[in-house]
C-alpha cells in the first residue's frame, strides 16, 4: 500500500499543475506536456507494472475535467509507457544524453496523437499545429526533463546555482 503513495502524490502534482501552473509556465504556444513528462520519467525510473498503471491513472486525471474524452489520454499515455518500457531495455541509460534522447522521442511520439485528438479541427491543420505548437512544446518540456536529470545526477545543486550569483 505504501508503494502507491508516491504515485498518488505525482497524480496530485499533475492536477495541481493543470489547475494552477499550466497557464503560468506556458510561453506563447509552447506548453509543458507535464502528464507525458511524468509518465516518461516514471517509465525510466520505476518498475514496469507500476509504470503502466501510473500512466493509466495519469490519463484518467488528465481527462477527468472533460468526461466526453475520458479514455483518450489513458490510452495514449499507457501506450507511451509500454513503448518506453520496451525501448529503454535497449538503451544504455547511464548518461543524461541517452535519457534525454528517450524523453524527446517520447514527447514527440506523444504529441502526434495528442495533436490529432485535441488540437486540430481537420487534417489540414495537423502539420501546422505540430510545427507551431507541438514541437515547441516538446522542446520546452524536454528542458524540464533535462533539469530533472541534472538534479537527479547531482550535476545541478543548490550550491552550484548559488555560486553563479
Amino acid at each position: 500500500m505504501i508503494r502507491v503513495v508516491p504515485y498518488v502524490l505525482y497524480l496530485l502534482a499533475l492536477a495541481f499543475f493543470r489547475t494552477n501552473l499550466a497557464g503560468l509556465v506556458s510561453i506563447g504556444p509552447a506548453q509543458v506536456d507535464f502528464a507525458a513528462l511524468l509518465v516518461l520519467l516514471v517509465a525510466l525510473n520505476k518498475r514496469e507494472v507500476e509504470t503502466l498503471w501510473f500512466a493509466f491513472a495519469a490519463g484518467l486525471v488528465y481527462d477527468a475535467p472533460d468526461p466526453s474524452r475520458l479514455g483518450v489520454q489513458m490510452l495514449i499515455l499507457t501506450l507511451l509507457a509500454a513503448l518506453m518500457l520496451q525501448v529503454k531495455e535497449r538503451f544504455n541509460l547511464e548518461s543524461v544524453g541517452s535519457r534525454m534522447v528517450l524523453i524527446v522521442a517520447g514527447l514527440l511520439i506523444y504529441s502526434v496523437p495528442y495533436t490529432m485528438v485535441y488540437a486540430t479541427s481537420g487534417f489540414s491543420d495537423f502539420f501546422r499545429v505540430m510545427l507551431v505548437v507541438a514541437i515547441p512544446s516538446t522542446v520546452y518540456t524536454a528542458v524540464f526533463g533535462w533539469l530533472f536529470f541534472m538534479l537527479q545526477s547531482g550535476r545541478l545543486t543548490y550550491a552550484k546555482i548559488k555560486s553563479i550569483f
Partner: protein
Amino acid sequence: MDWRSSWLKERKTLVHALAAVLLSLAVLVSGEGLAVPAGNVTTLFFYYPFQKLKDALDAMKHTAEDNAALSATVVDLSTRVQFYNEILTENERLRAMLGFIERSQVTVLPAEIVNVEGPGIPNRVLINLGAADRIQRNQPVVNRDGLAGRVASVMSNYSLVYLMTDPRCRVAARDKRSREQGIIRYRLYRGMYLDNCPQHADVAVGDTIITSGLGGIFPEGLVIGIVTGVESPENDYFYNITIEPAVNFNGLDELYILVGKP
C-alpha cells in the same frame, strides 16, 4: 505451479499493458455511463482541493480592489437600471399592443474558471458550477464583452465550456446593422468567420455581428464580434467574412452562464 500461471508470470508486463489498454478502450467507448461518474470522482479527489486553494488565494488578493471597483459599478448600474426599467415598461406595453409573444426571463450566474485548455488560444474552460447550480448542457456563456461559448458537458460541481474558439461551437448570427444572417465558425489559423453569407448580402467592415436567436440555444442580441474583412472569392456563392471576436479569449477571468430559456 501449472503452465498457465507460469506463462502469465513470464509475460506479466504484457498482461498488465493489455489490461490497461483494454480498460482505456472500455472507458472510451462506454460513453457517458462510465465516463461521467469516473470523471466526477477523479475531479472531486484530485482537482477540488487545488481549486479551493486557488479560489481562497484569489479572493484574498483581489478583495479590496474588487470592493472599490464594485461599489463604483453598483452606483453606475443602479442609475442605469432605473432608466432602463422605464424603457422596459414602455417596450412591454408596446409589444403587448402589437401582439408579440412575451420574451422569457434569463438569469445570469457568475462562474469562476478552474482550468483553461487549448492549442495556442484557449478553446475549452472548466468552470466551478455544475448540475447542482442548475447548469445544463448548451446554456450560453458570456462575459462582459459578449458571447464566450456554450456549456458542453455538466458534472455535479463543474462544467466544461466550449469557447467560441472551439471548432465545435457554431452560432447562428446576424449583422446588427443590415440584419443579414450567417453562421459564426472558428478555425485555428483562420480565426473567426461568418459563414453561409451570400455575396449579394449587405455586410461591411466595421459592422457588429450579434446572435440571431435562431437555433434556440443562444438568445438574440449577444455581441459576437466586429467584421474586419469582407472578400468576394471568385467561383463561390458566399463571402469570406473575417470577424474580430468581442471577447479576449486569452484574458478570460470571469464568465456568466445564462440560465433559462432564451
